[in-house]
């Protein structure tokens, strides 16, 4: 008898309402009736703002006192409730449809992690309980996004941990490996991996297959259809991984190893969310001071976990973009930051200024003047911009690719503020207002509507 297990993971929108859950449950039942042994993984019910979504739980603590950070351990215990609730509701939905089911927390499903609360990594899975459940004729429904950490394997219990970004996808992929599943299917509300955001390109085709590197780069550059952690686990262990739509019968996209996709192509156009680009003018600093200032900027951003996009270095300046929702952190820690450097005659007091000087920064500069020479490190801000990227497979190194992009965008009268590229992508920083037009222009230029 061959292995007939399929791991079927349903994301937030697929379990958000009773109608959606019913549709998802019917997918599971349909698979079972075809002789497949389904193992279900679920995310929390709904997305941001909904009653049982992860963010709603976090807000319960924030509302008590926003200035007090919750402990990571307690936060994990709290937000894991979303998936527990979702798994129980889904299992009961299956039961009402005549199919015996059993809900499992991550730990009950045998998922053991390291001890990093909020961003744990799976270290092992003992799928015995899941197999017993299947053996008993039940459909296991596992909470995504969570596991358990025990310092000593032989001790009972353990600490509940959550897996961080892409956690439920990761759970599904890891269970697929542990169960040696025939396939891992990630169900979402789109037909698979598309060549562009359908909001920008209405009839953007769905890719039949995409390589792990492509999907990881697409996620890196803003469009997370399947999380790279999940893709990586499945690829490493050679478990077929699919992205499918809960609400349609389209075949979806298969994520394949590079070896199965010889040749070059442009895969798609993706875009990030809203960014703020900042260019720090360091032209007036001597080399020694510049090194310390640059180093300090990066060290501060690292300490606060700020994500950087579109890094840029030139003899006069450094630049990068940060997500707009992280900009207040950057502003808090850098605007008005005072750094005295050097000693004696070479001593200079640097004051950071982001964008237009605030009265506070001006006052600070005036007060510091009595202590020595004061120089501003001014960052020019470009608020309201986005990175649009062309993602490709063995394509970006072709002569003329940059030229084609720049010509197409100039014809469309889209200003390119900066560019960046790597082995798999070519990115342009454009005004946010032009995001969708840039996506459409590149999609058309590279004839992505003809791709398969």
């Amino acid at each position, binding site marked *: 008898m061959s292995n007939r297990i399929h791991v079927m993971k349903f994301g937030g929108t697929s379990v958000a309402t009773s109608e959606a859950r019913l549709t998802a449950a019917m997918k599971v039942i349909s698979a079972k009736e075809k002789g497949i042994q389904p193992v279900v993984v679920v995310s929390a019910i709904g997305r941001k703002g909904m009653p049982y979504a992860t963010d709603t739980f976090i807000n319960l603590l924030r509302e008590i006192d926003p200035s007090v950070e919750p402990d990571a351990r307690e936060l994990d215990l709290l937000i894991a409730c979303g998936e527990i609730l979702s798994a129980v509701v889904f299992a009961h939905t299956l039961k009402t449809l005549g199919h015996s089911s059993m809900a499992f927390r991550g730990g009950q499903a045998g998922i053991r992690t390291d001890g990093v609360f909020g961003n744990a990594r799976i270290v092992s899975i003992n799928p015995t309980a899941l197999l017993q459940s299947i053996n008993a004729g039940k459909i296991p429904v596992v909470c995504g996004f969570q596991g358990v950490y025990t310092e000593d394997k032989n001790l009972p219990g353990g600490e509940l941990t959550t897996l961080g970004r892409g956690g439920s996808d990761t759970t599904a992929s890891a269970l697929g490996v542990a169960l040696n599943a025939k396939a891992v299917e990630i169900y979402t509300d789109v037909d698979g991996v598309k060549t562009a955001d359908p909001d920008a390109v209405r009839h953007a085709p769905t890719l039949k297959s995409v390589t792990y590197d492509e999907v*990881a780069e697409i996620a890196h550059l803003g469009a997370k259809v399947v999380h790279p952690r999940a893709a990586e686990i499945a690829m490493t262990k050679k478990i077929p991984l699919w992205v499918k739509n809960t609400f349609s019968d389209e075949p979806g996209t298969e994520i394949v190893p590079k070896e199965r996709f010889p040749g070059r192509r442009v895969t798609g156009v993706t875009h990030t969310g809203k960014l703020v680009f900042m260019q720090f003018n360091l032209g007036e600093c001597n080399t020694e001071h510049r090194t310390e200032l640059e180093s300090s900027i990066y*060290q501060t951003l690292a300490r606060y976990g700020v994500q950087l996009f579109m890094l840029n270095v030139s003899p006069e300046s450094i630049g990068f973009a940060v997500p707009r929702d992280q900009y207040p952190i950057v502003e808090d820690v850098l605007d008005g930051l005072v750094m005295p450097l050097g000693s004696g005659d070479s001593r200079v007091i640097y004051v950071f200024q982001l964008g237009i000087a605030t009265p506070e920064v001006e006052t600070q500069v005036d007060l510091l003047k009595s202590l020595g020479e004061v120089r501003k490190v001014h960052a020019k801000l470009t608020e309201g911009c986005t990175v649009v990227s062309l993602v490709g497979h063995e394509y970006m190194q072709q002569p003329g690719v940059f030229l084609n992009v720049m010509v197409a965008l100039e014809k469309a009268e889209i200003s390119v503020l900066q560019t960046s590229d790597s082995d798999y992508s070519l990115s342009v920083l454009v005004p946010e207002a032009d995001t969708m037009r840039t996506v459409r222009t590149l999609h058309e230029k590279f004839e992505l509507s003809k791709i398969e």
Partner: protein
Amino acid sequence: MNAGNVSPGNGVNPSELSAAVNGFNLSQIAETDFEKRRGINAIEVRTGYTQVHVTGLQSPIASSRIQVLTEVANAGISLDFLKLTPTGLSFIIPSDKTNVIQKILQDKSYILDLATDRSIVSVHAVNMRDEEGLIASILHKVISAKIPVDHVADMHDRILLICHNEFAAKFESIIKKELGLV
């Protein structure tokens, strides 16, 4: 029920699995190791590049940049790490194309500055974007070590930095020493 000791990394053996699913031999189920550890897992140095700076382009600058890119593309030369500068652009080409580029662009009276003997240093870490602050930490360490960085780019699993060949080895050792390899 305790798990048996099946080799890590291979998941459940299919024959054990089917037996298990049919109610036999559950004690033989494997535990499996999964995700790569977080952090830097490799550093790679590629030598043999030149950084080309073209400056003093005429307005409208966007059209002038396109003219430069057209010359490069017509010569069949692949470029990487394109960066727009206030008066022009810069990019990286393989060293063996340096003379060709120099001739083509100087023939058209472009102002050129060629930074030869460049290396691309790639610092690899799985799913870099989700390791908050990692990119900034790498840059902090490199800059603190007074290594002049000509350009930076990033991918899902690596950050790429351009520097002079003479700094590449120092770069590698600084990252290994300061941030370590997993």
